[in-house]
């Protein structure tokens, strides 16, 4: 460990000189040190430890101070990170991980197999209240610390998605000593091995992070060895998109997320603001139709809705041409993604035909179709937290388009709690619920019939209410197989069934864009698509 940092220290000036003298023609040159201010529009986390709960804002910030066991390349290959090598037994129930040697957490605790065991147990402990991480390691029965650099995972069932699950921020590794301080202390400042350390957190305002000078440099995609260049990061919470962009333009912050479409378009046209476009992994941004209750229990009505909702023109204008239409249930960053655009071409005539065939032949005074006295109503609760303004406008356009075929789409903007309550109570026919997870196993979570069983909070992930035994079988086999080719083929078949069922209307990738000004070297992880500032420098 000491040798590594000496090497890093020796190399760093060489690299810096090389970078600087490599020279750019404009006057701004990257500095060593300095502070980068990042302004996020996502909700402020209530706990900085992503083991607790587990949402994207937590992943965004924890990327700076926590590292996962493995990483992922752009083509989907799993890369070593804190774990250097791994092997799985023939029955798929035992995984042996070889861990990096000589790494310590920033509080001095050594990183070893026992630390890994403590972390998995932390995720599985009810008192932690983990949601995402808990699900990710659901098939892990126990972790055995065979020796300091050798951790053995014992599983209850084979899990082909284990590595992908462990590459996420929600299962990242924290110091056992840190965890022992208790939830309150650990929520305020988790201790990890990452390139930065949490120094302070002023609620509603900012989190301050300082450089970890002893960073071990295990990030597989790092552009340089050793510690980060920046001295500090100030992580600010600015909920209003227009204000955030104004702060970027005036130089108060160097990087923002969730930019509005016209800001993205302006960045694409040159100038001093650069765009980073990193779609989130997992599902695409899609609308799901509730196949468990009328009117969408009839596949003809589902297809009619999909054909009537003409989204291409809307996506083009509302997002200023910066967003591509998706025709798949998975994010485009997943190697196993399968699309079928023909299923989703707009065709109002076909929609009307299908509805006539399905028996919705009468119309009431307002022009909406009726059948046996009931109106063709589609309740569509919209989460104002998760859907940006442009997306809400897109839903309005879908509402208008569907009206032409006779659908009465009722859009209800709700805050997050109210939205989850409506979903839990099955008071929806259509909903757009993003789901971020690394790997195609997300299809099992979203479309396996097990996903219709609610958690104690009432939440269930299978909003399409798909209960197809053939699909279940494919997904079960895909998670059990160790053969990557067979796995890919099974997921292709599964996606065909999902798309053909017309319970999904794909819109676009989960948008995850960032604007940067006066800073360089920011890149996003190929796991959860969060930015890391390990290689970042501010320009003077």
């Amino acid at each position, binding site marked *: 460990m000491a040798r590594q940092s000496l090497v890093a220290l020796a190399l760093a000036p060489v690299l810096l000189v090389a970078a600087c003298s490599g020279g750019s023609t404009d006057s701004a040159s990257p500095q060593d040190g300095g502070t980068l201010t990042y302004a996020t529009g996502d909700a402020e986390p209530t706990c900085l430890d992503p083991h607790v709960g587990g949402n994207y804002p937590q992943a965004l910030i924890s990327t700076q101070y926590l590292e996962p066991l493995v990483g992922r390349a752009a083509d989907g290959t799993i890369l070593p990170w804190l774990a250097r090598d791994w092997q799985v037994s023939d029955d798929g129930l035992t995984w042996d991980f070889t861990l990096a040697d000589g790494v310590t957490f920033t509080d001095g605790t050594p990183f070893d197999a026992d630390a890994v065991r403590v972390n998995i147990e932390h995720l599985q402990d009810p008192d932690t209240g983990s949601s995402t991480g808990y699900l990710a390691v659901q098939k892990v029965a126990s972790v055995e610390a065979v020796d300091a650099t050798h951790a053995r995972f014992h599983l209850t069932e084979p899990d082909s998605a284990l590595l992908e699950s462990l590459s996420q921020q929600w299962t990242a590794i924290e110091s056992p000593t840190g965890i022992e301080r208790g939830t309150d202390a650990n929520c305020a400042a988790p201790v990890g091995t990452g390139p930065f350390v949490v120094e302070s957190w002023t609620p509603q305002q900012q989190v301050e992070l300082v450089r970890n000078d002893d960073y071990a440099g295990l990030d597989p995609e790092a552009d340089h060895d050793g510690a980060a260049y920046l001295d500090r990061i100030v992580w600010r919470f600015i909920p209003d998109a*227009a204000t955030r962009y104004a702060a970027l333009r005036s130089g108060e912050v160097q990087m923002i997320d969730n930019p509005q479409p016209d800001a993205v378009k302006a960045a694409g046209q040159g100038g001093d603001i650069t765009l980073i476009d990193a779609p989130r992994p997992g599902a695409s941004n899609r609308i799901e139709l509730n196949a468990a209750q009328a009117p969408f229990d009839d596949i003809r009505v589902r297809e009619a809705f999909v054909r009537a909702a003409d989204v291409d023109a809307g996506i083009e204008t509302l997002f200023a041409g910066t967003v591509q239409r998706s025709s798949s249930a998975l994010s485009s960053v997943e190697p196993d993604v399968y699309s079928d655009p023909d299923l989703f071409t707009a065709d109002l005539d076909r929609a009307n035909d299908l509805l006539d065939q399905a028996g919705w032949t009468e119309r009431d005074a307002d022009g909406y179709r009726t059948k046996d006295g009931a109106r063709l109503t589609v309740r569509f609760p919209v989460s104002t937290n998760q859907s940006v303004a442009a997306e809400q406008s897109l839903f309005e*356009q879908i509402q*208008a388009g569907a009206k032409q075929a006779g659908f009465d789409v009722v859009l209800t903007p709700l805050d997050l*709690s109210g939205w989850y309550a409506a979903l839990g109570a099955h008071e929806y026919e259509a909903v757009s619920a993003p789901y971020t997870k690394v790997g195609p196993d997300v299809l099992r979570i979203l479309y396996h019939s097990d996903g219709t069983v609610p958690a104690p909070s009432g939440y269930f992930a299978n909003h399409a209410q798909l209960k197809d035994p053939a699909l279940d079988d494919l997904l079960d086999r895909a998670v059990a197989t160790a053969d990557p080719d067979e796995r890919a083929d099974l997921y292709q078949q599964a996606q065909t069934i999902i798309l053909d069922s017309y319970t999904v209307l794909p819109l676009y990738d989960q948008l995850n864009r960032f604007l940067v000004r006066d800073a360089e070297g920011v890149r996003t992880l190929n796991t959860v698509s969060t930015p890391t500032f390990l290689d970042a420098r501010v320009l003077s």
Partner: protein
Amino acid sequence: MNGKVGTAVAAVIVGLILLAVVWPSLLAPGDPTAIDPLAAFTAPGPGHWLGTDESGRGLWTRVVHGAAASVGIGAAATGIGVGAGLVLGLTAGLGPRWLDAAIGRVIEVLFALPTLVLALLLVAVQGAGVRSSVLAVGVATAPGYARILRARVRTVAASGYVEAARIEGHGRGRVLLRHILPNTLWPLVSVATLGVGQAVVWVCALSFLGLGALPPSPEWGAMLNAGRLYLDSAWWLTVVPGTAITLTAASLTVLGRRIGRVAG
């Protein structure tokens, strides 16, 4: 002289707005929810003389049809506020001392809860939409009306000719109907007119927080909030609904104050 011109202008504007509320198709025959994505973000000019929004809908049509939603919400909220205020104020003003004191306390407490806080709580309970906005603003403004009415009722009840009427032996009911109510309600009209203007602005704030009218309703506050995001690229998306709100509220203010001065 100035005042008269101002009042006349205000009256004309309010008249137009009322027309938009009851007969929008007369002023704008189109469909305010008809989308046309290819015509999105058109600047004001021939064809769409107030421009189009992000879904290609003409702003003139949307503003005219939105009058019913925006002014309607304001009027309904004021109605609730005035109604509740009337009950509270009359009871306090005409009733025994202890009732007056008790209601006075209630009014004070209601005052202590800022309007937006009440609105947030109500929307959390009921969900967003017209009903919540109306209820929230109505309940929040009720104490104000109650306070004015109570003071007015007390003044009138203590006045000379009410005394005289009582001495002449007229029943309490008759005194109420013939003397107290007429002299109390006329100034109320002035206050209520002002109130509708204020209520329209409050509903606007709810829309900013995402808790206002449901789409695709062309409610002015929702339009203003949506347009704010395109402030420097499509200025007409904020200026048009913003002007509608400001003109309406301002005209109602001027008219209301004029009526107030006449009512004395």
